[in-house]
C-alpha cells in the first residue's frame, strides 16, 4: 500500500526518506513541489496528487510535510489517518514532532517506521506496543546507554503484539496507582454580525492519564450520558456495554490516551460564554479606518473566562494599526496582517476594550469585507454541555486507585463575523 515516505520541511528539503518496497527516487517529490507552488498557501496543497506513475498522499503537520508514495488503489483516508498516527507517535516519543527532533533521533524514527509498516501495510500502530519494542528516549536512558552500551531497543520480546488487548502492555507496575480524566469541551461557533448565533456545537473529548498496575478493568459512568450525541471510542471500550447501559467499560492502555471524543449536536442549545461588541469601518477614499472591539462575559455559569485571545486576519490593504488596549497587549504583524490581542481574564467590572486607528495603503481601494474575529478562551472546572462523570469503578485489581476528574471548556473554532 504505502510505498515510500518522504519528510519535507517548509523550505523544501527532503530530510528523511523511508522505503517499504523498492526504492522510489526522490525526484517524485518534484510533483509535490509543483503542487505546493501552485497552492501558494501550505494548507491548500491538495492532500492527493496524481503523477504519471505514482500517487502522492500528503499531510501537513507541525511545519513538516509527510509525503507518502502510493502505487495502487488505496482508500486515501487510510493513508492520511496512518500518516497522522506516525506524527502522533513522533510527538509521543520526542515531545514534539519537529524537524530537529526527528533529525536528532533519526535512528529511533527509522526503527519506528520499520515497525509501523510491513510492506506498506500497518503492522503495529498502538503506542503501547511500540514502546515495548522501542523505548522512547529519555535523558536518563541516553546517559545510561552511553555508559553501559545498552540500547533503546527492547530486550524482551513484545508480547503485547500477541495479546488480545494490544493497546496495553503486560506487567505494568506503579507505586502510586492513579487514574485521571480530563473532560475537555470546545465550543465551535459562528456568530454573525448582529451577535446572533448562526451555528454552535460542542465538541468534547475525555483524555485520560491512567497509571494503574496490572490489568485493571475500569468502568466510567456519567450522570447524564444521554447528552452524548455522537461518540467515537478508543478501541479498548466495549461497545456493547455502552449500547446497553451507557457505561464506558474498558481495560485502559497504559499512560496518556484519548478515551472518547463526542459531539453535543447543534440541535441542543449551546451556551455562548462571551459576547463581542465590534465597530470596524473603513472610510471611502481615505487611507484610514476605525477599529473598536469590546469583549464581555455572557452565560458563563458563574465561572471566570480566562486566557482570552483574539486574532484577526486584517485585509491585505491594511498597512498598520495604532490601537490602545484597556487590558492585555496586542501585536500586529504587518507581513501576515495578523492582529493578536492577548486579553487574559475577563472581569465583568471593567470590560476589556481595544480601539484605535487602522492605516491603509494609500490609493488602495477600501476593503469590502470586515475581517472576522477569532476568539479563544478557557473556563476552568466547567463542562459547558453539563456533562458530569458519575463514578469510576475498578475491577480485576485489589488496590485502591487515586481517581481524579477535571473539566475544562475552551473555545474551538469560535468565529465572530463582522
Amino acid at each position, binding site marked *: 500500500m504505502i510505498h515510500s515516505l518522504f519528510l519535507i520541511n517548509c523550505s523544501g528539503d527532503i530530510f528523511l*526518506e523511508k522505503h517499504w518496497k*523498492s*526504492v522510489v527516487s526522490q525526484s517524485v517529490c518534484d510533483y509535490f513541489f509543483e503542487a505546493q507552488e501552485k497552492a501558494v*498557501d501550505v494548507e*491548500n496543497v*491538495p492532500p492527493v496528487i496524481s503523477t504519471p506513475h505514482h*500517487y502522492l498522499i500528503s499531510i*501537513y503537520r507541525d511545519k513538516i510535510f509527510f509525503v507518502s508514495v502510493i502505487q*495502487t*488503489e*488505496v*482508500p*486515501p*483516508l487510510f493513508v*492520511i489517518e*496512518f500518516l*497522522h498516527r506516525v506524527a502522533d507517535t513522533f510527538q509521543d516519543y520526542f515531545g514534539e514532532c519537529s524537524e530537529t527532533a526527528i533529525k536528532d533521533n*533519526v*535512528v529511533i524514527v*527509522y*526503527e519506528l517506521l520499520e515497525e509501523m509498516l*510491513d*510492506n506498506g*501495510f*500497518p*503492522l503495529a500502530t498502538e503506542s503501547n506496543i511500540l514502546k515495548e519494542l522501542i523505548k522512547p528516549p529519555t535523558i536518563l536512558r541516553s546517559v545510561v546507554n552511553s555508559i553501559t*552500551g545498552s*540500547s533503546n531497543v527492547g*530486550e524482551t*520480546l513484545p508480547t503485547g503484539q*500477541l495479546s*488480545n*488487548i494490544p493497546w496495553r502492555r*503486560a506487567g505494568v507496575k506503579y507505586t502510586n496507582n492513579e487514574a485521571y480524566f480530563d473532560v475537555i469541551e470546545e465550543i465551535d461557533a459562528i456568530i454573525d454580525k448582529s451577535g446572533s448565533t*448562526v*451555528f454552535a456545537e460542542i*465538541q468534547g473529548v475525555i483524555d485520560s492519564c491512567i497509571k494503574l498496575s*496490572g*490489568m485493571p*478493568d475500569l468502568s466510567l459512568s456519567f450522570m447524564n450520558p444521554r447528552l452524548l450525541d*455522537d*461518540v*467515537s471510542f478508543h*478501541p479498548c471500550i*466495549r*461497545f*456493547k456495554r455502552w*449500547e*446497553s447501559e451507557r457505561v464506558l*467499560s474498558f481495560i485502559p492502555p497504559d499512560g496518556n490516551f484519548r478515551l472518547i471524543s463526542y*459531539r453535543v449536536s*447543534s440541535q441542543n442549545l449551546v451556551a455562548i460564554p462571551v459576547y463581542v461588541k465590534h465597530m470596524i469601518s473603513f472610510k471611502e477614499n481615505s487611507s484610514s479606518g476605525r477599529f473598536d472591539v469590546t469583549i464581555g462575559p455572557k452565560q458563563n455559569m458563574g465561572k471566570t473566562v480566562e486566557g482570552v485571545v483574539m486574532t484577526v486576519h486584517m485585509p491585505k490593504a491594511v498597512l498598520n494599526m495604532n490601537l490602545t488596549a484597556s487590558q492585555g497587549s496586542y501585536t500586529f504583524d504587518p507581513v501576515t496582517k495578523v492582529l493578536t490581542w492577548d486579553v487574559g481574564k475577563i472581569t465583568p467590572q471593567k470590560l476589556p476594550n481595544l480601539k484605535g486607528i487602522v492605516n491603509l495603503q494609500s490609493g488602495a*481601494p477600501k476593503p*469590502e*469585507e470586515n475581517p472576522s474575529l*477569532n476568539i479563544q478562551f478557557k473556563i476552568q472546572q466547567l463542562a459547558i454541555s453539563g456533562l458530569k462523570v458519575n463514578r469510576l469503578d475498578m*475491577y*480485576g*485489581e485489589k488496590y485502591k486507585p487515586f481517581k481524579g476528574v477535571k473539566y475544562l471548556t475552551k473555545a474551538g473554532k469560535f*468565529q465572530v463575523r463582522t
Partner: protein
Amino acid sequence: MKPMQKLLQLPASAVNLVRFPPGAAGEDAKSPVLPAEGGQQSWYSALQADELRLLKAPEQQPAPDNSAGANRTQPLRHDDLKEMLDSNKDSLKLEAMKRIVAMIARGKNASDLFPAVVKNVACKNIEVKKLVYVYLVRYAEEQQDLALLSISTFQRGLKDPNQLIRASALRVLSSIRVPIIVPIMMLAIKEAASDMSPYVRKTAAHAIPKLYSLDSDQKDQLIEVIEKLLADKTTLVAGSVVMAFEEVCPERIDLIHKNYRKLCNLLIDVEEWGQVVIINMLTRYARTQFLSPNQNESLLEENAEKAFYGSDEEDAKDDKTETASLVKRKPYVMDPDHRLLLRNTKPLLQSRNAAVVMAVAQLYFHLAPKAEVGVIAKALVRLLRSHSEVQYVVLQNVATMSIKRRGMFEPYLKSFYIRSTDPTQIKILKLEVLTNLANETNISTILREFQTYIRSMDKDFVAATIQAIGRCATNIGKVRDTCLNGLVQLLSNRDELVVAESVVVIKKLLQMQPSQHSEIIKHMAKLTDNIQVPMARASILWLIGEYCEHVPKIAPDVLRKMAKSFTNEEDIVKLQVINLAAKLYLTNSKQSKLLTQYVLNLAKYDQNYDIRDRARFIRQLIVPTEKSGALNKYAKKLFLAQKPAPILESSFKDRDHFQLGSLSHLLNAKAVGYQELPDWPDEAPDPSVRNVEVPEWTKCTSREKRKEKVEKPFYSDSEGESGPTESADSEPESVSESESESGSGTESGSGSGSEEEEEESGDQSEEEEKEKKKKKKKKEKELPRKASLESMGSSPSEEEEEGKKAKKKKPQHDRKGGSESSSEEGSVSESSSSESDSGSDAEDSQLETETKRRKMPPSSKPAPKAAKKGTKEISLLDLDDFTPPPPLPTSSSSLVSSSLVTDLEGLTLIDTSLASTVISPVFSSVKTYELLHRMTGEGLSVEYYFSRQPFAPDPHMVAVQIQFSNNTDSEVKNVRISEPKLLSGMRVQEFKEIESLAPGETTSVVMGIDFCDSTQAANFQLCTHTRQFYGAIQPPVGELMAPVFMSENEFKKEQEQLLRMGVGKLTGMSEITEKLTLPETCQSDHTIVQRVTSAANVSRVPCGADNEYRFAAKTVTSGSLVLITLEKKEGALAQLTVNSEKMVIGTMLVKDIIQALTQ
C-alpha cells in the same frame, strides 16, 4: 524436493561470485543454505574476521569509481565504519550501524558497506540486528549475490521456538527482493501459514503480497495459501490475509463464500487497519451476491429525480402510492447474510479511525436500503472536525453522497457552514455540499450564508460562491429572480474576477428566460468597455448575439466597438465576435453588413487557424454567392435556433460509480489496481454457498445425512468406533477433558482471547486425536516411528486434514465447554490420566502421556528429551527443532473475564440468531410458536422457537429465540420483559431491551429460561413503551434437554446403571417402554431419525445393529441422562424405550416421540 536441491546449489554460486579463496570456499561448500544436517549452526560466527576482509576486498577497490560524489567526499568515514563493524564490541557496531542508518534516512548511498554490514546479521545484540535488517532490506535488491549470504540466518530463525523470532525472520526474509530466493520464500510462507502461532500466520499473510510482487508466477500457489489462511479464525490474521487477497487475487470472490459469515462476526475485534480492508472487500462481495435492497424503489428513484426539488416527504408519499402499483412485483426480502453485514459494521461508525468510519459509510451507501443509509451522516459530520486532510477527503465523499441522498445530510446543513479560516480547498468543497443540499425550504438560509461568502477576501472562493448561486438559481425556480438580481449587483463589484464570474453565470441564467431580461442584457453590453476577463467578454458577446432581437439598437454598436479592438482580443473573444457578426448579419443586415465583412476580413488573416477556419465557414454560410448551395437558406435557422438552457450540474454527479472512499473516486479517474464496484445482480446467486459445514449439534438433519455416509467405513473398523464422535468412547471425564483443554466454550472467560486459545488448543487436540487413530491402526508396529510422525504433524498436507477434523470435533468442545475452567496444566494431566479408559493397553497410555507431555507448553525443553531417552526413540527429525509453543499470555484472561463475558454474550447472540435464521435446512422444520398475535398485540407480533443452541451465559438455561415484527405504522419502542411470574426455581435471563423497532421491521433476540426440567410455562409481561402484554412460553418436553455424544458401549453401560438404580427402588421407575406401529411414511432410517430429533433435542448414538436407533441427551437443568432406544421389529412394529431417572420427562417424551413417529 526440487526447490531444495536448487537451494543447495545457491551458496556455492554465491560464494564463487565473491571470489572466496579456495580454502574458505571448500569449507563453505559444506554449509548449505538449509542447515539440515544439524551441524554448521552458526556459519557466520565460524568465519574469522580475516576471511571476511578477504570477502570484501574486491569490493573496496571499485567502490570509489562506481559510486558518485557522496562517496568521494567521505571515503575515510566509510573505512572508519567498516572498521567499527569488524570490531568485537557491540557498542562500536551499534554506533556504526546507527550512522549508516542515518545515511540511509538522508537518502545517501551506503551500498558499498554491504559486505561489512551483512556479516553482522547474526549479531547477538538485538538493536544491531534490527539495524542490519533495515540495511539489508534497503540494499539487498542492489547486491543480490551478497544478500544470499544472510539467508541461512533467517532460515534458522524460521525454526526458532519463539514465535516472535520466527515471525521476524519470515518478515525480513520476505522483504528481501531477490528473485533467486523465491522458492525459499514460498516454502517459508507455506510453512508459516500452518504455524501454531497466529502471529506467525499473520506474518505469513503479510509475506504473500511481497512474494507476489517479486514473482507473479507463484500466483496459484499463493492463492492456495490465501485460501487456507482465510479459513483462519483469529482476528489477528483476518485483516492481513484479506489484504493479501486484495493484492493477489481480488477477482477470486469465490474464496470468500465460506468465510463470509466468520469475517462479518470477527470484524469488530479486528485491528482498525484490517477492518478497513475487510469492509471494502465485503462491499464488493455483497454487490455480487445479494440483490439490491432498493430494487423496488429504483423506478421511483428516477421519478423522484425528475422532481428535483421535491422534498423527501413528497418522495415518501410517492413511494407509498406507487409501491401499491408495484405490489405485483416479487417482494424483496433481504438475505440474512446481507443483513448480518450491515448489522455488524454499524458499530464501527463509532471508531476513532477516520478510515474505518469512511469504509463503513461507503458500505452503507452502496449496500444499505435507502431508509437505513441515514445513520452514516452523523459519523461523517463528526469527521469534519478532524485534520484538514481528513476533512478534504470526507467532504469529497459527502459531496457525492449528497447528490443521491440529499435528505441524509439536511439536518447537518449548518455543519457545512464556512469559516473564514478554512483553507480554500475545504471552502469550495463545503460550498459544493451546501449547494447540493439546497432546496426550497432551506434556500433562504443558504443564500443568506452565500451573501457573507461573497464578501470574502478569498477571490477563488468568491468565484465558486457565484457559481454556486447560479446552480441554486437554476435548480430552484422560486429564487431565480432573487439570485439574478443579486448577481447583477455584483456586476458593479470592484473586483474584476467577481464581475467576470457573475457575467458567466448570468449568461447561463438568462438563457432560461431571455425575454424578461433585456434590461440586464443592456447593462451587460455596457460592461464590455470595462471587463477584460476574456471568458466574461465572450459570454457577453454571445448573449448579445443570441438575443440581438431584444436589444436591436445596442447590438450593432457593440459589434462596432469589438470590430475596432478585434486584433487585440483573445481567441475565445474573437470567435464570439465572429459569431455576433454572423447573427447580426442575418437579423439586421442593413446596419451590420459592412461591419461583418470587416470582421470576417480581419479574421481571415488571423494567426489562429481556428479563427481563420471559422471566418471562412461563416462567410460561405451567410453571404449568398452563386457557389453556396441550399445551406444558405437555412443559415438563419442554423444560427438562431432555440438553444436549450444549460443545466448547471455538480461536478460530483455520477461520481458514485466509483466506490466511495477510494482513491479513484477522489481523483475521479480509475487508479491503478482499482476494482470496479460491480452492479447488483438481477438474480441472487445461490446463498447456500456461504453455508459452512455447521457443527453437528446445530444441524440435526444434515448431521444425520452425513453420518450415514460416513458410518460404514467406520464400522468396519476393528473397534467399531465412528470418527466424528471418537472422543465419546472414553468416559465422560475424558469428554470434559478435551473441552477444558480446548479452553474454549464461549464463556470460559478470556474474552476475545478465547479464540486464540481455542486455536492453539484445537491444534493440540487434533494432533492428539490423530495420534490415537494411528495408534489403533499400527498398534503392534514399532513405537519410535510414532513419535517422529507426531512431531512431523505440522506439515501442511496433514494439517489440512486435521483442520477438517477439528471442525467436526470442535462443536463438542463448544457445546459443553461452558462450565469448565481453562487452566491448561490441570487439563493436560487430567487428560493423560483419563486417556486410557477406552480400553487400550497400558503401554499405549504411557506413550500417550509422554507425547502429551512433550506438547505441554509450560514444561519447556527438558521434558521431551527425557521422554526420548525413556523410550529410546530414534527420531527422524532433530527434536530440538520441535519445541513446544511458548505459552500465550493468559494473564489477562482470568482478570478480565467478568466484563468480557458480557461482550462475548453479545457475540454469541449474533451467532445464534444468525445460525437459526440462516441455516434453513434445520429450522425450516422447527416449530414456531406464537407468543403474541398481531391482532392482540396491536400490530406487534411475537413468535418464538427453541433454537437448540446452548445458551451461552448460563448452560442450565434453554435458549429461546424470540422474533418481534412490527406491523404497525409507527415505531415500537422499549420492548422488554418485565415481572416474570415463575414457579419456584425457574429463572429467566431477559434479553436486552429493544430500543426501537421501525415499522415493518423484524428483529429477533435470544432469551434463556431455566425451566427446572419441567414443562411448566414461564409467564411474564411483555412491555412496549405504550402497552403491556401477557406472555407465556411453555416448552415441549423434547426441548428441555441437550444432546450428549456417547458411544454405543457407553450408552449400554449408562442404560444398565440406570436400570440398576431403578432396581434399588422400584423396577420400571427409570424405564418406560411402549410399542408402536410405524406408518409407511416413516420406515426409512432417515425419516425416523429426523422425526425423533425434531421431537426432542437429542443426538444419535452410533449403533451396530441395523434395526436399532439410539439417542442420548441430558436434561438442561439437572443434567440427568435421557436415553432413547427405538427397536424396529418385524413388519412395521417397533418398540420405544426411554430410560431416565426423571420419570415424568420420560413418560412425556415417549408420548411425544410416538406422536412424532406415527403422525
